């Protein structure tokens, strides 16, 4: 298992607060309070939805996710059919079972087949007051940026119409500042993980990432500052049989990472849409340009999902991170029927092999905690990595 110095591996109180957010989601204290205060809560379905626009309108944006554990998806299967990814089916099932009944709006993007169909069925069968779907281009060209900017402006106008007031540039600037602070703090956390013996495990980091899209950023930032302070002054040290990077489909179940770390693999970085691909890049304001332009540019250029073209943009970032975090191997987890990642895998594996970085490819279902077969394969992978190091 991951080796920790027992005498220094003290529990961090703030970490427990993040865990509590994830344990109680979607009925967290902050969401319930927001509703009690008569304010709105919106759900968003994909990292290409510009959250700052919602925040600037006084809305609490939370990411719609599914059950972070293994459950039967009877309703999800009946409505979305068995051959759609278990993430979409799990999210829909939670919606159908009224777990998200507090939502005042749902915002999605045309990002992948699973996401757009989840949006279609949510709109038809669940009935949330506000809906909006953005066309999200798959390219990074100037024309694509212009199209996406137009989409973001239309979304903002639609939201203003629903809310009955204008979202001002001043409010957008404040939201950008707040969200950028989150991103900076999370990168500070990741910097600590570059250490040969980081003070935090991959499992613990995932708790923080998960909480980041489930709670008000104002509070999240304060908690994370406190945690970073604790970590910088702690003597916590974690080492493992191998340093690993986790890539691929959406992942929220921290038990999956724990199953890897229990066997001695130390996850030191990742490329996941619930983590670095969510908060990876800052919004960069350019002179006097309207803030909405900067937001649109950031969201299209952000750490790319496998849906984007060319795929080398994604592959280059993965290779770069793998080298910077000095990983011994990459664990790719692809949810069954998550086609964009399944298509990328053969090409990504070749790119990583060119850098002498081995890849363990795992086909999983969303919410899996790392079953016996996965443990066996991780064990064999770690043995191979250890042999390679000798």
């Amino acid at each position, binding site marked *: 298992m991951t080796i920790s110095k027992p005498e220094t591996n003290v529990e961090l109180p703030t970490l427990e607060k993040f865990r509590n957010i994830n344990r109680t989601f979607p009925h967290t204290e902050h969401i319930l309070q927001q509703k009690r205060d008569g304010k709105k809560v919106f759900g968003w379905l994909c990292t290409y939805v510009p959250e700052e626009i919602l925040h600037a309108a006084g809305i609490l944006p939370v990411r719609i996710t599914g059950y972070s554990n293994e459950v039967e998806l009877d309703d999800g299967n*009946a*409505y*979305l*059919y068995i*051959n*759609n*990814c278990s993430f*979409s089916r799990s999210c829909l099932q939670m919606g159908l079972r009224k777990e998200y009944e507090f939502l005042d709006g749902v915002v999605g993007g*045309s990002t*992948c*087949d*699973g996401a*757009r*169909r989840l*949006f*279609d*069925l949510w*709109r*038809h069968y669940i009935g949330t007051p506000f809906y909006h*779907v953005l*066309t*999200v*281009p*798959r*390219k990074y060209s100037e*024309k*694509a940026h*212009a*199209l996406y900017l*137009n989409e973001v402006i239309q979304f903002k106008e639609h939201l203003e119409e629903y809310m009955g007031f204008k979202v001002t540039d001043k409010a957008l600037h404040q939201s950008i500042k707040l969200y950028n602070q989150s991103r900076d703090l999370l990168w500070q956390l990741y910097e600590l993980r570059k250490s040969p013996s980081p003070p935090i495990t991959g499992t613990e980091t995932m708790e923080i990432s998960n909480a980041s899209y489930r709670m008000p950023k104002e509070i999240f930032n304060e908690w994370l500052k406190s945690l970073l302070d604790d970590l910088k002054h702690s003597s916590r040290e974690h080492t493992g049989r191998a340093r690993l990077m986790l890539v691929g489909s959406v992942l929220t179940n921290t038990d999956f990472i724990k199953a890897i770390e229990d066997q001695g693999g130390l996850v030191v970085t990742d490329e996941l849409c619930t983590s670095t691909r969510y908060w990876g890049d800052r919004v960069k304001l350019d002179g006097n340009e309207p803030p909405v332009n900067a937001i649109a540019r950031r969201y299209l250029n952000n750490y790319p999902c*496998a*849906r984007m*073209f*060319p*795929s080398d943009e994604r592959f280059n970032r993965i290779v770069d991170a793998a080298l910077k975090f000095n990983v011994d191997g990459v664990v790719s987890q*692809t949810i*069954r*029927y998550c*086609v*964009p990642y*399944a*298509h*990328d*895998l*053969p*090409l990504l*594996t*070749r790119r990583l092999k060119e850098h002498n970085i081995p890849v363990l*490819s795992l*086909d999983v279902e969303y919410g899996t905690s790392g079953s016996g077969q996965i443990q066996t394969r991780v064990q064999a992978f770690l043995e191979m990595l250890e042999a390679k190091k000798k």
Partner: protein
Amino acid sequence: MKATGKNSIESILRACRLIMKMGQGTADMSPSRTMYYKMLIKYFSSLLQAKENGDFIAAHTVFFPAEVIYAMDLVPMHTETTTWMTALFTGECSDILAAGSSLGMASEICTPHRGLAGAFAIGALPRPDVMLWSNMVCDNTAKSGELVMELCDCPGFFIDRPFKDSQYEVNYLVGELQDLVKFLEDKSGRKMNWDKLSVIVARMDKQIELIRQINELRKSVPTPFRATGFLELLSVDYLFPGQPEAIEYLETLLAELSEMVKKGEGAVSRERFRVMSLFIPPMYLIAFLEKISQEYGAVSVIEPFFTFWGEGRLDPAHPLESVAKKSYMIPEMRMYRPMDDLALDAIVDCAQQYKVDGAIFYADVGCRHSCATIKLFKDSLNRIDIPMLTLDCDVVDPTITSEEEFREKLERFFELLEER
């Protein structure tokens, strides 16, 4: 490796020639069907001989605007149709699917695209000079190009077609097409013939009009068009957009169907059930589906995602804009837009117009975005008391379902329709 490029295309050609020979003089081989097989022979012969003739092969995925390829006198290779045809005419494609898997492609990647990569990997298809693809109509098409580029060591171009249909988005697509023309001119060394593209667009407009007229005839009771005839319309549309052969074929078919309607003749000897087909049936069961259609008097009268074109006309004076506009009129593109009440009402309306008794949804295990609509369609058709049968299958892989399973489920469905 079992197959070679020539063998795969040649097997399609051999099968087409054999079907024509066996059907010669029979009622089954009508003039339009004869034309259809001659067209297939022409298409695949061009592909087979392209390298020897020094032609430039442009491989492209489904719904990619092949009008542009034809206007530049390049040889098109419709990748999915070639995979389907291999399954249709050879009865199996296990070797190319296995080759796809051995590349590391997961089993849930749909078989036409897994097979496509496999076919290139083992040389079952000729190496293209360029790979062209788009996100029309799903993630599989959007993601299929880069691996082929790497396998074939060829350049490629991806068209990013926006999800919605605002004028802004249509203009974006026109920009994509302009970039495509520049790319093809650069790679092939040939210039775009804009006059030719205008002629092709004019013909494409006529082609769509002819299909609309054919559909009008299919509203007749009894309906004159064979149960799986729509697959021929589909192939003509995919392989010959705006080509003179397509016009000739459709005009001939229209005349044949008109004559049948005048005489009160139907495609089946006694029409009992009028069926709406949703999505594509397995290619390897086409002959069986024709047979059971005759046995039970059940015939597909409309296919909203394959033959039921959206409203609008193409304008030859603005060819590239028309090619962009066409991508929003293609029947299958109903699947690539928000599936809102408007879209669902269109299906219900279609069922009423064509006096449908029941619907059959061919649930291709590899096709996520279509299967995710099953409940939406079932519930929508339920509103007007039309039952829908869902048949799990795979469009090219015969190991997913058998003829026996299909027969059992279809017989039960026909019994249900009979009771109603």
